[in-house]
């Protein structure tokens, strides 16, 4: 394992994106291309991120563990902790930033790009996992229940796990 490259890939993913899912497409393409991760690692890590406390963006720490053990997890944690430090710089210039007409456009554009890119990566994850009636039903039901916001995330994931054991083994 080339630790420096490993760390820099995680750092890039966090620094050049925003939010919890923003780093996902970077890490998915970079780590799979190098053979350091497989598709299922991402589902595993994202799931841990959803059910463990703290920001769910810490799913990358779980990914670090799954791909490179404890040192990988700690490097990933460092890689997500560093970019937000730039907020101290942002706080100094934020009034000037806000005065530019382009600023909200740049931020919104990033969100739109994340949505488009993550959609493709999710599709790949879904296909690699196996497309059939059961998996399509699970995805659709979870999307609707999440959208209504009445069922807690952990319960949805437990239900899906049970459905997997019952119907997909």
């Amino acid at each position, binding site marked *: 394992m080339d630790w420096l490259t490993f760390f820099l890939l995680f750092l890039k993913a966090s620094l050049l994106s925003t939010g919890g899912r923003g780093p996902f497409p970077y890490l998915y393409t970079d780590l799979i291309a190098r053979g350091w991760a497989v598709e299922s690692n991402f589902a595993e890590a994202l799931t841990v*991120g959803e059910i463990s406390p703290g920001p769910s963006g810490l799913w990358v720490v779980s990914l670090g563990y799954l791909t490179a053990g404890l040192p990988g997890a700690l490097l990933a944690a460092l890689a997500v902790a560093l970019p937000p430090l730039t907020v101290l710089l942002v706080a100094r210039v934020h009034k000037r930033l806000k005065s530019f007409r382009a600023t909200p456009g740049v931020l*919104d554009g990033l969100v739109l790009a994340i949505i488009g890119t993550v*959609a493709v990566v999710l599709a790949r994850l879904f296909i690699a996992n196996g497309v059939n009636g059961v998996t399509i039903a699970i995805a659709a039901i979870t999307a609707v229940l999440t959208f209504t916001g009445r069922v807690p995330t952990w319960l949805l994931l437990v239900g899906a796990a*049970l459905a997997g054991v019952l119907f997909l083994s």
Partner: protein
Amino acid sequence: MSSHAPRTPAPLTASTASTASAASAAATSSSIPASGSGPQPSLIELFLIWFKIGATSFGGGSATQLLIQQHFVLRRSWMTPEEFAQTWAIVQFAPGINLIAITVLIGHRFGKAWGVVASLLGMMTPAVSITIAMTALYARVRDLPQATAALHGITPALVGLSLAFMWRLLKPPMVALRRRGVFAFTIGGALIVLAALLTALGIPVLVSYLAASVGLGLVYVKSRAPAVTDHPTHTSM
């Protein structure tokens, strides 16, 4: 859910944009809210409060925002609601995880560099170690046939979950674009499709992110925003 979660502002920051600009008008030279003359948390208190937030918050969306408000605004009044709203607005401009950025900014507000260290360590220690422990636990059972089957069920659920989150992320920028007219709205939609196409073709992710940021930045420079209220970007990311 962290930052992909709905950015619906919590009650106290219901009008983040307007309160923030009011607060920045009130603040003198610095954009960081000036330290109040009232009581301040010590480094140990900072560490403990953020430890609690890191261990008990889930996701990072509006519920977490409320939790932070409770500790710093409602319970101790270390910050005014306006200060908090402005802090939250600034965080939206920073890269990476928003919850970590607000930890840094509030830590700095109360203890400069050491405040950042205490707050960040406090928030990250429980969250990171529980995440690692859960992953390690899972890694021990992942080879069981039941675990494999469970993961086959969880993966599509995760896809569904993420689709719903992304729909919530999508709404604020698209609403803002529609207010700028059909042209801006169409460009926004086209940029999503472009990002998806580029990724499907194996073009580096950075290219998609840059193209959409620059593209929409240009659209915002060219198109006139309706003069109703401030743009809701501060709450969209």
